[in-house]
């Protein structure tokens, strides 16, 4: 598998979990759009950049999982900061549980002992 294939696979895997990761990061600390992109990058999640993250932020706000508030800054422009709402925390808990179950299932599949046919082949 080439590094490009690796990258594509990583992007595919992340696609289904990106909103959960964003919610988790915002649960730790509210952020504005670009700041969240940076934090995703720092966490090692190549989320596809601002063009992917910012529309997702607006979706989660529409769904009531996030709230937004304009903060003025003494040293820079005003910022619209996104924070997780109680409904967002509830959803995050549910997603985390689902994710744990999913990971356990995948791990169990990957670590299954070799089948009888494979043992004979060895």
């Amino acid at each position: 598998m080439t590094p490009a294939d690796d990258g594509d696979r990583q992007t595919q895997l992340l696609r289904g979990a990106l909103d959960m990761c964003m919610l988790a990061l915002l649960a730790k600390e509210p952020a504005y759009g670009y700041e969240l992109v940076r934090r995703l990058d720092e966490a090692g999640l190549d989320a596809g950049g601002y063009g992917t993250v910012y529309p997702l932020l607006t979706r989660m706000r529409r769904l009531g999982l996030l709230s937004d508030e304009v903060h003025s800054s003494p040293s820079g422009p005003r910022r619209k900061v996104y924070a997780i709402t109680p409904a967002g925390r509830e959803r995050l808990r549910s997603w985390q549980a689902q994710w744990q179950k999913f990971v356990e299932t995948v791990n169990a599949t990957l670590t299954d002992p070799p089948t009888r046919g494979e043992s004979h082949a060895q």
Partner: protein
Amino acid sequence: MPNERPQWTIDHALTLVEREWRRRHVDPRDRAALREDLRLDLEAAQSEGIRPDELIKGDVRDFAARLADEAGARRIPFAYRRLLLNALIGTLPGALLGYWMLYGVHMPIVGATSRQPTVAELAGFYSALGALVLAGSLLTVWLRMRDLPAMGRTVLGMALAMPVTALAAIPVAMLFAWSVNYSSAFPVLVVEASLVCGPLAGAVVVVRRWALRDYDAPAPHRLHPAPA
């Protein structure tokens, strides 16, 4: 040659994004809200040294479309293409019937009696044909598009605007035909058809915009949730 991207200012980036929202008929109020939010974010990023073109990588139209969709922005259902197509299709039965009346009924009668029709008779005949074509067009639009909002007002507006527009456009087309000695060359016919169809299509678009001027798109959710 290196693949250089133009360096956008925030205003330029917002203009590009807004152009796509306009193209998609996003409600002006939602456009303004989305624009303001995006401006704040771009300004904040720029204060950290990140330019808009570095931030919005890739296809700006795709970004704008996704942003509007994900934010749940409302769209105004102008449906111009569908409206114009149905209006055009609706003229066909009337036009065919008119053609048959003109060459199958009117001309033979005029030929048999050898009496030249008066101007009033000609005006009445062509007005009746025009009314037939218009009625077919309006009926088709109504029957095929009545599920869209403000279609009653649209059809009513078309019923008023299209005859007036035709009355203005047809003399212009006739003047053009006279100026080219009533040539039947294909490019001439195309220009003549454009001189009539262009203003009619424009009138339909204007009428549709007028019909939807107070349209309040149903919003299953607010773009900005109300503060608790």
